[in-house]
């Protein structure tokens, strides 16, 4: 993308859903906010009447697949999808091939992100070598690398060994890192295909019981508190997990948690079609879980929304359920799903959406320059969202490489009109720049 630090004047946007004002971006920063700002010479004026302005979204959980599975996604294609979804920073998960368990791999991913330029790509480092759960990877080297890794995760696999988890939690304290745990007790989920319950029993698919997530979360919260470290819980999916995290926070544990958009809206009965587009890990749960997750996100027990954007090529999903890959894409639909499930229901204000999709994830990931207030002097990382432009999700029209969206054909209430990364539009008029 050409380096263009042009001046932009945003007319009539509603910051965090408040009354309309104008915002002026110059040299990558917000330089003025107020009614009827005069347009400087050469400024590009963007009519944002009726649009909501939010700080650029930050995703703490993205699979960009590069290196290794460039057929599913690349850093460039994934960060384009991120920009289309209103994101200005994403965290690239470590389960690539090779695994991001060395400074070399994380620097490669970081550099690919810089080159693509659609959003800031923050690599996540693997906790254990090769995600094998046996010994720590070179966490310190990744933290000190050009990528400045602060989030470590074996996501896709649980760090199930309690001692190894304790060591990892302790080790990252040295540089203010955080362990993002994929909570899944491995023995309880051998061969698991979907949420264990009424639907799995009828469909004859091996179940993934809620307790397999909850038991690990409880253990990790106690460990994190014991060693005084930060724990982040990836993709919380059950009511019991919400209860445990609420309890852990009350007793002073430094734990944060995320929920994915799909777990806020989809339920396990979708598996009745045996269409693996609904196959994901952790699995879709019950309506009761969905309700508890929404309430947990509303009351702050769950801190953030993270996409767990997991692209897969067509052939990984056009198959029998049990052989299909787990995961679904989500970057481009996240804000619309949150709008539908949390804002339309009155559970969150737009200011709270900004906290949970931008400010809090930036804090957890220690991402500088993102998730800031919409205030003069701050970096101009901003998304403009039209809350009154319903859009039908079209799997074929995704900006990323893969189309495995469970929301295809579903109507979402609004759309991203523009995304600015340090004052430069990555998306304008709903189209990638």
């Amino acid at each position, binding site marked *: 993308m050409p380096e263009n630090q042009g001046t932009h004047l945003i007319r009539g946007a509603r910051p965090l859903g408040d009354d309309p004002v104008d915002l002026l971006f110059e040299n990558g920063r917000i330089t003025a906010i107020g009614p009827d700002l005069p347009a400087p010479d050469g400024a590009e004026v963007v009519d944002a009447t009726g649009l909501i302005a939010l700080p650029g979204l930050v995703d703490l959980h993205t699979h960009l697949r590069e290196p290794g599975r460039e057929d599913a996604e690349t850093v460039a294609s994934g960060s384009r999808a991120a920009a289309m979804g209103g994101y200005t920073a994403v965290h690239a998960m470590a389960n690539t091939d090779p695994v991001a368990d060395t400074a070399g791999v994380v620097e490669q991913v970081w550099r690919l992100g810089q080159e693509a330029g659609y959003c800031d790509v923050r690599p996540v480092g693997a906790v254990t070598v090769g995600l094998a759960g046996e010994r720590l990877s070179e966490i310190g080297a990744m933290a000190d690398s050009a990528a400045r890794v602060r989030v470590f995760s074996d996501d896709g696999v649980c760090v199930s060994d309690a001692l190894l988890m304790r060591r990892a939690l302790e080790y990252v304290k040295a540089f203010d890192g955080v362990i993002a745990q994929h909570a899944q007790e491995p023995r309880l989920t051998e061969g698991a*295909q979907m949420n*264990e*319950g*009424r639907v799995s*029993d*009828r*469909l*004859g*698919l*091996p*179940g993934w*019981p809620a307790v397999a997530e909850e038991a690990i979360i409880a253990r990790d919260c106690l460990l994190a508190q014991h060693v005084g470290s930060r724990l982040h819980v990836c993709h919380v999916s059950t009511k019991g997990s919400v209860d445990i995290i609420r309890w852990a926070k009350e007793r002073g544990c430094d734990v944060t948690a995320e929920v994915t958009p799909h777990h806020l809206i989809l339920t396990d009965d979708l598996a009745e*079609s*045996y*269409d693996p587009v609904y196959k994901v890990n952790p699995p879709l749960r019950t309506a009761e879980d969905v309700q508890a997750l929404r309430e947990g996100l509303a009351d702050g027990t769950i801190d953030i929304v993270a996409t767990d954007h997991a692209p897969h090529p067509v*052939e990984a999903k*056009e*198959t*029998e*359920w*049990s*052989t299909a890959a787990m995961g679904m894409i989500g970057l481009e639909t996240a804000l619309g799903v949150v709008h539908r499930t949390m804002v339309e229901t009155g559970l969150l204000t737009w200011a709270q959406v900004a906290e949970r999709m931008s400010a809090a994830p930036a804090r957890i990931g220690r991402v500088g320059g993102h998730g800031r207030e919409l205030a003069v002097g701050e970096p101009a990382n901003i998304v403009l969202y039209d809350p009154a432009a319903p859009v039908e999700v079209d799997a074929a029209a995704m900006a990323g490489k893969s189309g495995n969206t469970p929301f295809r054909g579903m109507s979402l209430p609004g759309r991203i009109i523009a995304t600015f990364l340090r004052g430069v539009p990555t998306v304008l008029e709903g189209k990638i720049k």
Partner: protein
Amino acid sequence: MRHLLSAGDLDRDEATLILDTAGELAQVGDRSVKKLPTLRGRTVVNLFYEDSTRTRTSFELAAKRLSADVINFSAKGSSVSKGESLKDTALTLQAMGADGVVIRHGASGAPHRLANWVDGSVLNAGDGTHEHPTQALLDAFTMRERLGRLEGLRVAVVGDILHSRVARSNVLLLTTLGAHVTLVAPPTLLPVSVHTWPCEVSYDLDEVLPESDVVMMLRVQAERMHDSFFPSVREYSRNYGLDGERLSRMPEEAIVMHPGPMVRGMEISAEVADSPRCTVTEQVANGVSLRMAVLYLLLGGS
């Protein structure tokens, strides 16, 4: 009825129509010419990803008695074993003009997927631990033949319910047809949500036996022992195996069923397996008529 994927898709009228049709078609096996011209010019593909000579042969004979052309497409020795996807196989069968595909697959739901990719009718001949609808239909047919009715019949299904497609299909079908099902197994071999199923559950075979018109024994694989589903074959057999002594405590008219293959000495003793009250061979014979009925009703019309 376009496909037969789940016994739960059948309402009472449809299920009864299948059983009645099977009853008429049963005569064909006794005739000098054991063949009907009904499916002449139609192609039925037996797509078997699991070895099951018994079920495949039953479907093959049924299709041949209706004069269909039958192609056996087994996973071994075909492109399937070379990693061809189910979808590509489906497109191949489609190109060959298959009017019906009978599929046996180790993955639950594979027939549902296949039904999206072919124009012809899909018959589920057993998918993973999901369902085996024609087995349930032939079981119901056998019960009706032997006992004269299904309404109000008390049926105990005993054994590895958790991993049994036969149990799932039977619970759905027999309930639809008005029978009362009781599942009997150790708690480890019952699904977690079994209390939401339209049937009773018991851990005590001896309590259920005197109250049963039909006792259906399911195969229990000894390997389950290694996954701690039960401590030992001996303990399982002592608590849930059907022997002569237990048989004697069943009502006089009650019958013993088994979908086969039986593991003698595990869930059923040789004495019971060979008793005239055990319907195993009748079930096999009825399977052909029943599958003829299903093939006719799916493929015989427009």
